[in-house]
């Protein structure tokens, strides 16, 4: 919301002079980046391992090869066997997958990565699946213009804290923004939510009549929610006044990134 306020202020003073500047940023030793995902759908169990680069280098992040990657099952869900491990094999450089493996709600998983002398671990619990009931589009007066925004309704389960991440695709193109929801004020109720887009977006990045609109709903655990929330707040380099910092990760062992065990469900509509 704060960025919207700043946006409004800048509108008021009618000067927002942007200029590319040179910064003398000191580089640091490369750090491993582990991005691990596991959903309740086979084919989503994937771990990407890359490394950080200095600011002035290009944006190709080659995969890091030769890691040993396992997911250990805690056995909280009666349907699974405690202590079972799933091995993820390297299918492309830096991409480790177990294509047949799907997770289960209520189960806790630990990702283990062994790479050179380092060992990284992270634990994540796959929450109960919440149904994405309805997806529809409304016209909104948004900073004086009419925008089409996606709306969704989901029946939030009572008595448990729920965290959601939505991913929006317009004609198959993923929107850059992170849409994060929690059930703080709507526990146990029909959770109706609008996916607000960045008011600075160009017209071709917005939703229009005739577009194919897909929203994917991920039910994530608290730690993963915190990861995305903190990443959005302070790591995207967007000039927000919030003090920049690395996102709060659930990985231990000194790598950047996260491990998320989540459920997934998508809905697609044609925008009227």
């Amino acid at each position, binding site marked *: 919301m*704060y960025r*919207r*306020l700043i946006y*409004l*202020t800048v*509108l*008021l*003073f009618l*000067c927002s*002079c*942007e*200029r*590319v*500047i*040179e*910064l003398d*940023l*000191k*580089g*640091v030793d*490369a*750090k491993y*980046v582990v991005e691990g995902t596991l959903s309740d759908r086979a084919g989503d169990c994937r771990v990407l391992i890359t490394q950080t*680069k*200095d*600011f002035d280098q*290009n*944006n*190709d992040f080659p995969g890091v090869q030769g890691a040993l990657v396992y997911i250990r099952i805690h056995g909280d869900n009666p349907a699974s066997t405690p202590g079972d491990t799933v091995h993820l094999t390297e299918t492309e450089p830096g991409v480790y997958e177990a294509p047949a493996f799907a997770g289960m709600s209520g189960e806790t998983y630990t990702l283990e990565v062994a790479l050179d002398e380092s060992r990284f671990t992270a634990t994540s619990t796959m929450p109960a699946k919440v149904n994405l009931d309805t997806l529809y589009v*409304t016209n909104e*007066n948004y*900073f*004086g*213009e009419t925008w089409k925004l996606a709306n969704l*309704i989901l029946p939030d389960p009572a008595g448990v804290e729920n965290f959601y991440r939505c991913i929006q695709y317009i004609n198959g193109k993923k929107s850059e923004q992170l849409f994060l929801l929690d059930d703080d*004020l*709507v*526990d146990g*109720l029909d*959770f*109706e*939510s609008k996916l607000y887009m960045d008011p600075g977006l160009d017209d071709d990045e917005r939703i229009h009549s005739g577009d194919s609109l897909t929203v994917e709903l991920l039910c994530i655990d608290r730690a993963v929610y*915190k*990861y995305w*929330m*903190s*990443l959005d*707040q*302070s*790591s*995207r*380099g967007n*000039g927000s*006044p*919030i*003090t*920049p*910092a*690395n996102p709060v990760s659930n990985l231990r062992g000194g790598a950047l*990134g996260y491990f998320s065990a989540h459920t997934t469900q998508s809905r697609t509509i044609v925008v009227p």
Partner: protein
Amino acid sequence: MNQRRRFKLLLLFFFSPLPFFVHLSRAQTVSSAPEQERYTVSGTIQSANTGETLIGVTIMAGTIGTASNEYGFYSLTLPKGSYQLEVTALGMESKIIPLMLDRDIALPIQLEEAAQSLEGVTVTAPSDGRSLESPQMGVEQLSAEEIKSIPVLLGERDIIKAMQLLPGIKNAGEGSSGFFVRGGAADQNLILLDEAPVYNASHLLGFFSTFNSDAVKNMTMYKGGMPAQYGGRLSSVLDIKMNDGNNQDFGVSGGIGLISAKLNVEGPLQKDRSSFLITGRRTYADMFLKMSNDSTINGNTLYFYDLNAKVNYRLGDRDRIFLSGYFGQDRLGVGELFGLDWGNGTGTLRWNHIFNNRLFSNTSLIFSNYNYQIAIRSGAADFDIFSQIRDWNLKQEFQWFLNRNNVRFGFNTIRHSIRPGQVSSNNANIHSEALQTRRSWENAVYASNTWDASDRLTLTYGLRATAFSVIGEGDFFQLDGEGNITDTLRYGKGEVVKTWFNLEPRLAASFRLNENSSLKASFARNVQNLHLLSNSSASSPTDKWVASTNLIKPEIADQVSIGYYRNLFRNRYELTVEAYYKDLQNQIDYRDGADIHWNGNAIETELLFGIGRAYGLEWHLKKQAGRFSGWLSYTLSKTERRINGINSDRWYNARQDRTHDIAIVATYQLNPRWTLSANWVYYTGDAVTLPAGKYRIDDEIIYYYTDRNAYRMPDYHRLDLGATWLLKQRKKFSSELTFSLYNAYGRENAYTISFREAESDPNTTEAVQTAIFKFIPSISYNFKF
């Protein structure tokens, strides 16, 4: 040293000098004028034109003198004899009053406003509060009159922004009315309007201050060595007194500027006895928004208004009652979707009583309120969030003017209640919830004495004792090292959760080296029990005030400072050099990734604690006399923090750490009609955190950060120009036009630095700086009749 012994020593220190003083002063009396009787001359000093009481007026009888207090009262005790009392004040004609002192004399004094009062900078008196004798240091004073000519942003005169041009006081960003004093945070400034604390002194996202300069009589900023009557914040006290209202004649003044209009009405209710004042201001930026054809602009709301009102009544010669109030409100809205309203309200009821020619009393009952309300109207998400901080405050102070001693003592009791957040909704699909109200009770007793130990040496020594009690009902917590709750303690209504006791010694001394110069030194401890939590570098109306709890300890600052004061060229120039070192304990910061808005009752789980230090050297050269006036200020300083859990527990530069900070302010009276002015500022860019590298997550570029605040924003500099054209000046009516050009050479000063895929090569990343104010001209019209 254990706590008890320290306390004893403090007590000893505090009380032991009294007999010593009596002894010393008696010895002096004996040597200079044996067996001589002493009498007191006392009274209230007023402006002859308006009846406004005058603060900080110097009254000298030869080398001995005093200054009028914040209610215009003075009392001077001298040996029997005949004197020439020399009375001088900024903006007023000096006066010499012959006096035969052979008994106690009540002498009310009236001063005429100096000629050219609309632009009156032709004053030869020393600036208030900067006398060579006074041990008070680290003090800055400005009157509304003095800041009139300084060029300003969008034509809106702002007393706080004028203050930011003084050494040791730094703005909290481009165009911001927030400020940092000697390395302190923005919430460590106690901002008082007629004694009532103002919790959010900014309008319009910080670009304007809440103080309408038309209603302000006087403004004093203490950067160090705070007198014992002030407490509750670490870094500074900004004490603003409103005008009382003209008790001689009715008057109307006002102004129309680019973004706001102001009107001030004042006059006697009963001539000489009582008067009133009402001042209002409203911005109409939103009118411009509505006029715009651009639909992205005209659907929004953006304005603020202020209202100041005051009445006072004189009940005989000894009693005076004041009732003053302030109300301000900001409204900001994005179409129908989102609204944010916030505002302060304060009220002060004061009673001045003169017991006798040496004992003055002031009793104040003060109310202060700050709240904000967020309205979300977005389909099903239809709810309001309300938050409030409210104080009831009773203050009693006595001032006792003894021979060569000026004693102040009193007490202060404040009841704070903070409602951190309350959600209400008409939609059945949203829960209405409220965070627990936090209550606390803050008590203080203090005493201090200013003692003219000799013709050269003056000392102030004081002590403030504070007790801050955290009161139920509510849940309080125990945490482990990771910030997880290990135990919840439930307290009932009125139960005391924790009381924090602190002693705050305040010491100051001045030593007169010669006619023209003096040395000063001071030490002060300050304690702060209300803390503003903000995880961002820009102030937001929704930043959270929290009181100390069982886990949040009172913030403590110890500051030592020394100063060299010198008047140059027959008092036409003043040079002040001060050095300070400040040590800060129990500083607070958010954890990374803290959920700052709705994190339940256990706010402590999101906090980290640490220490800080700040030191610096401030130079101030000021010229007040003549057609050309102004000042040069330069601050060289360092400000650091060390917070457990941030930056690997190492010291890092605080955001407000600016190595060099320079301001030049100049005003030139070209002829009786035209006054020209200019100011130029330069400072080292703020400390910022910039990325050490980058990586990819979820197909987006994410930045990798190592050291907190290890880099600098580009250096900042800016020139502003101004001109005032006096259209008419008659006894009945005067008017003027003021022109300003903010950022005259169009420097693009970086407001933020952001990163994005390079436009030329999307496979690389570039840094982009955004500037917000470039050549902002403005014009405003002011009148008075």
